[in-house]
């Protein structure tokens, strides 16, 4: 278990317009990017995420849906006028994981469009649990803070404190 937590490198939060609103490292001595690079990274990822969403393959609906209004039952070989996603019940998500030999980037998008990007070691387990907890802390200590302005950079001391304490507590 202890090895799991050493693997959390850093966290980035992107608002629904693609702007960087939070960035934090969880280990000392990580190579830092400049602030501008982080902003570019956030914007680029936002765009790539949107692209991966829109290039999700669609399957033509082979059988026409039985429409009660039309009275002609024998419409054979219809032109594939409509397309559907392979699994219609599951909403289309964009990029969820990006993995290299050295790190794994996990993206979690909330229903409101905010994206949480977590950089971890590829061997780290339970990344979903970590992200869920981060989301919970965000909902508590950022969204319930009357001094936080929606979509603006997160500067909430209580959020920093609880996030750090929770990740440290996992080790």
């Amino acid at each position, binding site marked *: 278990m202890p090895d799991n937590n050493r693997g959390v490198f850093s966290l980035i939060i992107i608002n629904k317009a693609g702007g960087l609103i939070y960035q934090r490292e969880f280990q000392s001595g990580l190579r830092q990017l400049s602030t501008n690079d982080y902003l570019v990274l956030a914007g680029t990822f936002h765009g790539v995420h949107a692209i991966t969403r829109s290039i999700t393959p669609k399957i033509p609906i082979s059988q026409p849906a039985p429409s009660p209004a039309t009275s002609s039952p024998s419409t054979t070989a219809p032109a594939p006028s409509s397309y559907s996603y392979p699994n219609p019940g599951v909403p289309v998500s964009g990029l969820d994981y990006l993995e290299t030999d050295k790190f794994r980037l996990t993206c979690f998008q909330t229903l409101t469009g905010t994206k949480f990007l977590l950089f971890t070691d590829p061997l780290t387990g339970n990344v979903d649990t970590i992200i869920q907890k981060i989301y919970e802390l965000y909902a508590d200590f950022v969204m319930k803070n009357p001094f936080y302005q929606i979509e603006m950079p997160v500067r909430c001391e*209580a959020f920093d404190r609880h996030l750090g304490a929770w990740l440290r507590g996992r080790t």
Partner: protein
Amino acid sequence: MAGPPRHATMQSISNGSTLQSGDRPQAQPSQQQLSQQSPGLRVPSNRKTIYDRHLNRSRNTELSRASFAFLFGEMVTYAQRRVTGIQDLEKRLNEQGYPLGLRLLDLLFYRSTSTSSSALSSSSTSSSPPNRPLRIITLLHLIHGPLWRLLFGRAADALEHSVSPDTPNEYMITDNDPMVNTYISAPRDMSMLNCAAYVAGIIEGVCDGCGFETKVSAHNQPTELWPSRTVFLVRFGDSVMEREKVLERAGIK
């Protein structure tokens, strides 16, 4: 703004999970019917509103911490409008709490008298027959214990008297982690701000309701272990201190 599209995505997702989408259409018409029957207060079928209930019935019921946090957040945002500075903002929060303190006092007394002896013995101060506190210490114990328990479900963490001989009228009530500040982080340029000024206003209202002229203010005193530790400084007026001396000589407790 971004309201409608967000709602649309929520709906399309909840269509996927069958439970919610099935429940919603049924719940909505019934609510509409109710509001058509009686605009304004919603009266249950047995004609009993919350005003018909016994006051003690909601003694041990719990409230949602999240809804309180959002409500209090809105109160802070509201108070922040058209203020000139931190002191002005704290004064406004204090003024919002003050009437609550005045009203709460009656509920506190009512509940501490009309309940069984077990409740009385648990609250150390209000068991004496003259219910209204006459001395400062009795009043402060009432705030430290029963009032804090009524508001936050636990007693306050410390009650101290000022050690300085110049200010014998100052008392300090400490809360290590005030519930109102749980989710609030003040921005750096307002680091002196403590939103527990609202609670200070409640204390002020309680004191005034008991006939003690007071000024109460909330101050940050963070420690390593308790980053949002707050001290409520209670400053009694001169008339109170004079009366206190008279009562002390008369031996009234």
